[in-house]
């Protein structure tokens, strides 16, 4: 199965002073980045298998569950590229988000994921609705997403999502929480947008 060995190797190489300070040639920097990416991808499979095991209680039996849920991550979430969140929620599909807290204290944060549809709702694992907010994805980010997703992933351009869906999430120390995003009859709370103009430039 997958291991974290490639990530360990990549991190070991990235301790070189040229990697730390950014004084390598471009092709060496690209090699550091590629090795880290390979390591991350393999570690992602380890995390996915672990989450599947926890979610389906295989730890109790000690045996892998035959129906293993596949978990994906979004390393390019910062540029709004997240294929798992592009699921069509209108077909009775729910998007499940597992939030893992790697620190030793309880914490809360606002999660942001890109969505196409504004008619969505977020619930916690007990089915209670969670406070959420929609924010339009600005053109500057769409350009970045299109350019870098093609550059790094070689994928054909798919139209960027329209909104960020932000919601409050919390997780216990070294623990996780689950949130379910599904379609709703009404739109989530939209952000009120107001523009302020430079009167001199406008003249």
């Amino acid at each position, binding site marked *: 199965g997958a291991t974290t060995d490639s990530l360990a190797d990549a991190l070991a190489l990235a301790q070189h002073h040229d990697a730390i300070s950014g004084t390598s040639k471009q092709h060496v920097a690209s090699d550091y980045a590629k090795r880290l990416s390979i390591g991350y991808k393999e570690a992602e499979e380890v995390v996915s298998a672990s989450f599947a095991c926890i979610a389906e209680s295989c730890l109790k039996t000690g045996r892998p569950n035959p129906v293993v849920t596949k978990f994906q991550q979004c390393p390019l979430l910062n540029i709004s590229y997240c294929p798992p*969140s592009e699921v069509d929620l209108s077909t009775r599909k*729910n998007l499940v*988000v597992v939030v893992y807290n790697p620190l030793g204290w309880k914490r809360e944060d606002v999660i942001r994921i890109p969505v196409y549809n504004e008619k969505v709702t977020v619930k916690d694992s007990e089915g209670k609705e969670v406070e959420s907010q929609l924010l339009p994805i600005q053109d500057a980010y769409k350009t970045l997403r299109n350019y870098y997703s093609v550059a790094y992933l070689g994928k054909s351009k798919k139209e960027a999502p329209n909104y960020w869906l932000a919601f409050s999430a919390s997780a216990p120390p070294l623990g996780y929480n689950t949130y379910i995003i599904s379609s709703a009859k009404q739109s989530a709370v939209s952000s009120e947008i107001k523009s302020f103009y430079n009167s001199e430039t406008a003249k």
Partner: protein
Amino acid sequence: NDKIEVGPGNVKLVYSGNEGNLIQYINSRSKVEQSVEQSYSYYYSDNGSADLQASGAYIFRPNGSHPIDPQQQVLLNVLRGPLVDEVHQRINSWIYQVTRLYKGKDHAEFEFTIGPIPMDDGIGKEVVTQIKATIQNKKKFYTDSSGRDFIERIRDYRKDWKLEVNQPIAGNYYPINLGIYMKDNDTELSVLVDRSVGGSSIKDGELELMLHRRLHEDDSRGVAEALNETVCVFDECTGLTVLGKYYLRIDPSGEGAKWRRSYGQEIYSPFLLAFTEQDGDNWA
């Protein structure tokens, strides 16, 4: 519309309605009210024509500072909601900034998108952001030591030897992995970062961070290549765009240490998100 107040929680940022500049930071819980300005500028890099030492990956050797004034028709786009308020600013055609204030957080988050830095004038540029307040820090500021303790830095001074200042900017720059702060008797202004950058306090009451650099020349110190990162789609290459965040908090003097240590950990170890999909109500 003289002033625009933003923020759904304890922390509010106040912007000038006429110029669109940040002018004040308010925390209603800790009773902090501080005049603050935030801006971008860039240093021209040294091309080595004067004494053969050019700016490069190793060498920071600024040759004049140039403020970047927003010249856009839209000064600010303000988005307000129950969880987060955002202020969007297009500083110029290659710098975009979103400032966020969250309901439950006592700090401001600045997300910068910088690049591709234009090079068609043949001059390398090193882009910095400056945060100015009325803090009388008397040449002293504090930077982390590889994410560990914050160490006192004094402008134009080294405690171990007599410093001859040849580079008043670069000679006072320090590596920032976790954060930088300055203080006086009343107030403490802290900035935490999500990536390693350079930083300093070049004037009293000011902190600055270097967020991106793109240079024309090699500095002849061993890289043998100019620091000019590109990203290519098929055969078409352009300069690198960076997207990162830094976090600003102002406390009464002596009260910022807990936030710097605990929130610094949260920046370094954010929530790990994993996604899957399930049908209908068939979820656990």
